[in-house]
């Protein structure tokens, strides 16, 4: 594993993984899922994480996003050594630095679009007025200012995912992680969501790590990293 194989361009790394490993145990039997993952991802990257089913994409993404812990190695993300944070510190770190986009949107059904987007802001010191302002901006950014008071069941899948994206960016995190964000969408809606994510990367400078199966989706990223059985296989630079 040489450095040039994973040259993702220059710039300060926002994500640094050193010899990261993750195993599960079934009884006494160790099942390695990730092994020897070494990578530096510069700030402002847009990376598509690809690979066959079961290759460890979601596992790696969860480690980077700080909702899972490695069994070996270390991760430095957004300026913090994640192994050094306890669970509560890790939670505040996520709130400040990471936005999540899920395949199933995972909006809270009893909250309207405004309230869903407001959720992560409730943890910050932001007052009522500031929250209202920021939620408004985030929803305007995803082009849903007119659906502010709609409930998830009143929205289309594409709209729901855009609300979820607004929720992910409302705290202005440095890093967005997305696990199959277009997996549940039809081609047209998928295209819209991907275009939106591309704008978040190019215009707002968000670093994005996106897991996807879909080559068309991966084409929107600037780099594709392929995982194979828990190790990096190859990277491809996308010429957009």
């Amino acid at each position, binding site marked *: 594993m040489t450095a040039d194989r994973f040259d993702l361009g220059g710039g300060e790394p926002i994500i640094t993984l050193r010899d990261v490993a993750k195993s599960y145990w079934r009884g006494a039997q160790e099942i390695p899922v990730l092994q020897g993952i070494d990578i530096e991802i510069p700030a402002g990257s847009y990376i598509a994480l690809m690979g066959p089913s079961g290759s460890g994409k979601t596992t790696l993404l969860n480690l980077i996003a700080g909702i899972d812990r490695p069994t070996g190695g270390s991760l430095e993300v957004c300026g913090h050594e994640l192994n050094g944070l306890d669970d*509560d510190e890790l939670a*505040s770190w*996520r709130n*400040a630095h990471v936005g999540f986009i899920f395949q199933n949107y*995972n909006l*809270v059904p*009893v909250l309207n679009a405004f309230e869903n987007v407001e959720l*992560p802001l409730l*943890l910050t010191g932001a007052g009522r007025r500031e929250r209202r302002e920021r939620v408004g901006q985030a929803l305007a950014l995803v082009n849903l200012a007119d659906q502010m008071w709609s409930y998830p069941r009143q929205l289309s899948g594409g709209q729901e995912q855009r609300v979820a994206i607004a929720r992910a960016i409302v705290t202005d995190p440095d890093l967005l992680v997305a696990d199959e964000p277009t997996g549940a969408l039809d081609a047209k809606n998928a295209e819209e969501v991907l275009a939106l994510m591309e704008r978040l990367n190019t215009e707002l400078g968000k670093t994005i790590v996106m897991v996807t199966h879909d080559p068309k989706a991966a084409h929107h990223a600037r780099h594709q990293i392929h995982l194979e059985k828990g190790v990096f296989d190859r990277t491809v630079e996308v010429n957009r």
Partner: protein
Amino acid sequence: MRWLALIWKSLMRSKRRTLLIVGSLVLSVFTVAVLQSLLTTLDAVTNNPNSSNRLVVRHKSGLTQMLPRSYEAYLRQQPEVETVCAIQWFGGYYQDPRNFFANFASDETTLFQTFREEFGISGITEAQIKDYLRDGAGCIVGESLAKKNGWKVGDVVPLTGTIFPISPRLTIRLIFRSPKPSDENVLHFHYKVLEEGVPRMKGLVGSFWARTRRSEDIPRLIERVDRHFANSAYETLTETENAFNLSFVRMLGNIGAIIQGITAAVVVAIVIVTGNTMATAIRERATEIAVFRAMGFSAGRVLVLLLSEGVLLVGAGGLFGVMLAHLAAGGIRGSLGAAMPFFADFAILPHTVFACLAGALAIGMLATFIPAYAATRRPITDGLKAVG
């Protein structure tokens, strides 16, 4: 404040389930509050501090047997005894046999001294008492009884006898107020009316109520009185007024054990219902909880939010239940109070309210805490994988 809307909307997620859990809590808190208050009421009957220095002397073979009125002289001679009142249960009714209330033929000369507290003696004037003493066909009634029948001082009350073959027409000379409602559901008239109207009652009475100077004297006195009349033609059974009342409460069966049994069953049922409902509700939200935590909500914060929901639910249920019990207490006083005098005192007392609310909250906390704690211990990645 910023969390309140979130908690409220979460509660309204499944209105049916929220209603079910609040409803079953209302019902069980209501049931437990009423039953426990019943027990408190009965306890008060047999632990009446006012009657702690009174004792009742009656025939050893039962309440239907009479004692010679001459026994009164012996009782009065005892140094511990302050005053003695001869009383006979008359068992008459006014207009309608279902219109029950306690009425007695009693020795008017000692009645007020023997039952000072019950007659609220400080509120009665000498002149009022004299009015009653002067009129051999007079009677006295408690205020709530008078109110129920629309009686005023000077009205004539025809009382139809059921045990005794007389139906005296009594003129109300005094309406008294008592500290306890049950003591106001009473009518007394002169003993002579019974003695003169019923030949077989000549020189006889059902019971003597003796007031002692100090309650410590009572055990000695009881023993001495019963020993004195042992082996006579009229043997006595002497006991404290509380013990006497207890024998009436006992006629209802072992009501304490029944009430505690039902209470335990209701508590077990509500623990199971609440526990199950909360566990299901929280399990269904596994994904949502994981999403909250991914967004930066700490396990503790999620736990507090879920606990708040649970506490709000059972708090509302408990509060409504207690309020309902309070409303029902009025009905019980009116209905059961007519059949059993002491139910006129029925009330949901503060300590019962407190115990019911505390119990409901404890159950709610526990029922929420266990599944909520388990949910926040689960890895976030598990929750995100769950289909939700």
